[in-house]
């Protein structure tokens, strides 16, 4: 909810005719910078065999970091509107990175779960067939 309101306020700020507040933009940059550094940690170190989602996340994280740099640069040039747009770009990208990162655990878990299930299925099948094989002579006997 907070995020939503925040987004709305950003939208208002991004509207032409509204001059972006310098302090607010600076705060925004700091906030997104914080998120970016958290997400850097959340993403594992580069791995040759990583999933396309991780590659995508890494790409967006990089461009978010660039956008934040750009925002800071624009802020030093007193171009609050550009700085605002740049930080907004960073935010959107970080949102996407966060979505990608948050799904990672489930994605990684999947093959293991599938294997676990298959193994248990096989084991079950083995026991069941052992039972039915043993059952038949016992039933035929009397």
């Amino acid at each position, binding site marked *: 909810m907070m995020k939503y309101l925040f987004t709305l306020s950003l939208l208002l700020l991004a509207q032409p005719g509204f001059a972006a507040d310098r302090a607010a933009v600076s705060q925004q940059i700091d906030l997104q910078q914080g998120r970016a550094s958290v997400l850097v940690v959340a993403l594992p170190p580069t791995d040759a065999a990583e999933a396309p989602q991780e590659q995508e996340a890494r790409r967006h994280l990089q461009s978010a970091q660039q956008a934040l740099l750009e925002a800071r640069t624009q802020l030093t040039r007193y171009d609050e509107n550009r700085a605002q747009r740049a930080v907004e770009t960073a935010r959107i990208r970080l949102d*996407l990175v966060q979505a990608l990162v948050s799904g990672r655990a489930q994605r990684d878990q999947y093959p293991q779960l599938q294997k676990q299930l298959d193994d248990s299925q096989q084991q079950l099948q083995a026991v069941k067939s052992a039972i039915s094989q043993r059952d038949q002579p016992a039933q035929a006997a009397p």
Partner: protein
Amino acid sequence: MRQRIAIGLLLCCAVAQADDPPAWQADAERLQTLLNRPDANIAAPALDEARAALDLLNKKSTKRDDATLQSERLQLKLREAEILLQNRQDQERNAHLQEQYQRNLLELRYAQTQQTLLQESRRQQQAAKDRESALQTQLEREAQRRQLAEAQLAQLAQERQRAEDIINLALGQFAEVWDDSEGKHLRFGFAPLFGEGETLLPEALLHLKNLAILLQAIPERRYLLLIKPFTGDPGPLTLARLEQLKNTLAENGLSDIQAAYQEAVPEQQIELLLETQVAPAQNPAEAP
């Protein structure tokens, strides 16, 4: 100059008109598709933001710089929404797998228990069968032994009968012989033994000697000499003859001979009864 400006403006408008709608037309459709999904609420904030971006893009007043940002925002938010929905799907799929796995584990445990019980019951069945067959074997062995014993018994009885027959045949030379429940009866006439007198004839003596030898071959009998009484008194001749017969047999090994009077014996005849003993038929084969 004015003409140029006018043409330039017209071109700009044309480019703007031709360019603008298709640029995010596809994104608008994508947004609509996502909004139509039943689980769209999971990605509601992202979708709302995408819609807001689309609205801004659709506004003629939006500046170019801002339009670039909004277009990017639209696309990235759509992607984010897709990712969020995908994440939820992954989560549900994993939960489903986990659930299935737990179900399998339960079923597996049940099946393993069943298997163990089955093995146990089979083992018990086998043990019972083994015991049963062992008992069966024992029973058969005992039945065989009994059969063998019976056969031996029958053979023994047959042999005894044959021995008895042979003895009877041998005794037949000296007397009339028959067996009954009382025992073995030998009946003589007085005349061949004594002639007219009370002394045994010499050939009769030899005869009795041989008879005594034969009789000693028959074990465990009690000897009884039977005569028919005369009216009142048997008479001194008969008594003397009886006495001599007893003595002769005693001399030849048949001691302890009792004498008795019996109505069934004919006149001038004497009967030697070899009484059957109390336990006549022993079964040596029945001993284990």
